[in-house]
Every structure is written in C-alpha cells, then in structure tokens.
C-alpha cells in the first residue's frame, strides 16, 4: 500500500482544474442551448391533407387546423377559408352558409357576405392534387 499524500499545492491544482472543467462543461451546455434556440415556427401555408381519395365526391370536410372547408363536387375540389374577414374569428359552417359567432356576420355558401359587420367575402383557398395523389390546401 503506497503512502502517498496529496500536497496542498497539488490539492489546489486539482481542485482548480476540477472546478474549471465543470465550469467549462456548464458553459458549453449554455452555449449549446443558445445555438439551438428554436424560434417560433412560421405559420404553415401549405397543408397536406393526405390521399385525395379520402375525400369522395360530395364530401364537405371542415379542416379545423387551417381553418377551412374543403368541398368535393363534380367540378373538383375547392376550399373556402373559415377565417372571418371582419376580425379573424373562425366562422361556423351551416347549411345556409357560414356564421361568425363573434359579431354575427353571415356568409352564403359561396362565402359572400349576407350580413355584416364583415364587408368582404370569405377567402377562397387554392387546392392542389400533387403527383403522389395527395391533396394540398394553400393559404398564401
């Protein structure tokens, strides 16, 4: 069994080295987190709705994430934004058209205003069927 003792100088050296190492690791962790800071993601403008076959002719599908109403008629797919053109509330799809629960605006099934305070029609959104037969709705 060796009888080595740690001199005061060695102890101070070792302790300083340990503390500096810990500080360095902590600093690196901070730097790593800083460099990996996630900014708020930009709002999506392209929504992949999956296979177009999921939306058979005659289907009227509310897409709450956009929000929009996807309609599949004989003439193809169309989508109408459910964002009220007054202040941006989400309008509700009704048999007679669309109704804004916030301030009472009404729109006909084509999105034209039938009662204010909104004075602009609901936006029509671009619908695209991609080569892989996926349906995409674009809000830009």
């Amino acid at each position, binding site marked *: 069994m060796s009888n080595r003792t740690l001199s005061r*100088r060695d102890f101070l050296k070792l302790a300083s080295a340990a*503390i500096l190492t810990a500080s360095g690791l902590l600093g690196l*962790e901070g730097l790593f987190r800083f460099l990996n800071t996630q900014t708020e993601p930009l709002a999506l403008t392209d929504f992949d709705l999956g296979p177009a076959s999921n939306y058979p002719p005659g289907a009227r599908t509310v897409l709450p994430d956009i929000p929009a109403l996807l309609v599949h008629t004989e003439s193809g797919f169309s989508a109408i934004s459910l964002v009220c053109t007054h202040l941006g509330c989400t309008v509700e799809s009704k048999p007679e058209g669309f109704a804004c629960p916030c301030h009472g605006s009404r729109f006909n099934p084509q999105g034209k205003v039938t009662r204010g305070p909104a004075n602009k029609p609901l936006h029509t959104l671009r619908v695209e069927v991609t080569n892989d037969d996926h349906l995409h709705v674009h809000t830009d």
Partner: protein
Amino acid sequence: MRRYFLLAASFSLLLSLLTAAWQESLRPKPIALTPPLTGQVEYCLTCHSDLPQISNSHPVQTFGCVVCHGGERLALNANLAHSTMRGGKNPSDFSVVQASCGGANCHSGTAESYSNHIQRATTSIQATYAGAIASIRYTFGVQADLKARLGIFAIQVPQSTSGITALEAFDPAQETNPFVQAFGQTCLTCHLSALPLPGSVYIRFTGCSACHTPTQSPDRTSTEQVQSNNIHKLTTSIAYTQCDSCHNRGNYDLRNMTFELRQDLPADRLHDFYQPIAQFTSCEWKLDCVDCHTRTEAMGDGNLYSTKKDIQYIQCKTCHGTLTDLPQTRTLTDPNDLAFRLALLNPVVDLKLGDTILVTEKGEPLWNTLALPDGTYQLVGKVTRQVFLFKPVRGSGCTQNGVDQSSAYCHTCHSVER
C-alpha cells in the same frame, strides 16, 4: 497565494454559472399564441391560461391579449411583461380606451356602422358629468344658466344637436365659490372616470368596464358572483346592481355639499332596487335597468348634453302605448338590423327575420321584446331571462292622459307598496 486566488476565481465562476442555470430552470416554458387579428406571437398565456374568455365577441384565440391590454408580448418576466400595459387591469379606462378598444373595425367606427362606442361613451353625460357640474355652478350663481360648459375632461365634437360642441375641463381649484369648490372635492365620485367609493356595493371599474364588467352580483341574494374587482368579463347583460354601484346609492346634501350614502342595504330586490323614498311600478323593480333603457340613453348618442333629461327618453308609453296609440313596432326584414347584432351579444332571445319587436320613439330596437299575435307583448329580461307578458294601454281600463308621462302620474295607480 496565486493558487488560492485561482481556486477562488474558479469557484466564483462555477457559482455564477450554476446560478444562471438555476435561474434559467425557473423560467416557465413559454406558451405561444399568434392571434389572427395581430399576426404577432405573444406569450401572455404562459401565466394567464387560466383566465376565462372575456366575452364571445373577443375570443382570446382570435384577439390575443396584447391588442387590448398592451404589455410586452414576448416577456416572460411578470414585471417586464406588465410594464407597458394600458390602464393596469382595466384597458377600458377612458384615459387609454382609444388605444385599447378603438380602431375602425372595433369600437371607434362610425355612427352608420353602430360601432362608434368610444365617441358616444366619452361624450355621454355619465362620462362628462356636465349636467351635475352645470347644475351646481348655476345653483350657486357661478353661471347664468344650466347650459353645460365644463366636464370632467375637456372634449369637443364636430357638431352637436344640443348646440354644445365643446366642454372645458372642470377644475375645482379654479372655482372661487366655496360650495362649488367643495362639490369638486367631495362629489365627483360617480362619473365614469371616478374611482369607486370604498365598500362592496360600490365596487366597479372605470370607463367601459364600469358598466360592462359585472363586479356586482345580479342581485343581493345571488351567489352567482361575489362582488369583486378581479374579474375578466365583458357583458351587455348588465344587472341593476351594477347600475346601483353609482345610482340609488345615496343623495347629495347641497347644504353641506356632501354625498349622503344610503344606509339601508336590503338583501331583497324589491327593497334594494330603489331608495326607500322612491315610488316605482312593478316592472321597474322586476326588470333590470337595461331591459328598458337603451344603449344611447346610457352611452350617449355622440352629442354633448347639459342634463340627462336631454338623452333619457324612455317612458311608460314606449312599451305600453297610450289610450289612443299602440306602442311603436318594427317587423325585422333587414338581416343587418341592429336588433340582430344586439341580440347576438346577449342571446336571451332568438330573433328571426319576420319577427315584430317594439321600438322606441327614436327607432331604437327594444330587441328583447316581441309583439305577439294576440295583440299582447313579451319582454325577456336581459339579465334574469324571465319572460314578462304585458298588454297595451289601449283597450284597457286606464283613464290616463297620454301626454303626461311623468313617473308620479303613472305611479298614482301603478306604484308598488313596500
């Protein structure tokens, strides 16, 4: 010695880094919201996700918080986040209301769009207090007539049917009459910019929220809400108790220039609604004030007036008619009729195109009423949702002179004994 210094410095560095890491761990994980109205991310919900939605017309997912309240939208430190809030807890205070609630699409629109609320409210007699000020100054000989010249704050309008287009700010320190000075010091407690008197029955906010934020229970026996100034709600369902946080809370004593607070605090509606000295009819205490009094009576019509009598015009005959005339009605044929918008804000009735409702002499819709096919009428309480059925005076046994609509005249037969 150098070694000790190096060790101390290293230890200090580690301590600093650990403290920073600890502080960082205490920071809440931000909850981001990007309301469509502003399109700007805000982190208010990180701490305030438990707040109830303020009203169906102002959903937080659409409006966010900052557009009304101000504040630093990206701050996660409470002091910093709140440092630039408008009006503290109350962004509707008239000192900041234009920035908080204004905007052409919001509440400083046009008279034609029915959304010029700020212009109307800030010129209303409840905001300017011009009537009380003019009355006191006239009573004590400071001005020659009752025409309003001064208000709680200076304000002007481009034109006014009353002929009054501007009010200067009332400054008690500029007054020389001691009674008017005393009035200024002790009696300016009930206008819409005044802080409430101490006491639970006086609790209210200022500005729009003085009326539209229900700080009072719907009636004194209700446990629905307790009196509180810590409430996040806007409503047009305004209980009489909210009105009574200013009205019917006492009387002015002009000899001592003091406001003598009402001493009785009855728990039942019949005795609480009006002061003991007042006479009233059944409908006057079973209904709430807003069931009859219209939005322009309470919030003004955009003109400056000298007295509330210039703007209040609802009378018994508005709903009951006279011996010769039925009350005025309107059949709703326009989907943009104001009645629909008002009914949407407080859906106690389900108005439909083709319904016939009562309207006031100025054409304001009494949207909570309905003319029934049998010639009678229905009113639904805007607060209580209670249904009241009533008949017109015409064809009844009433022998009134329809011209006289003073309350004392109608109360001769229709007062309630307490």
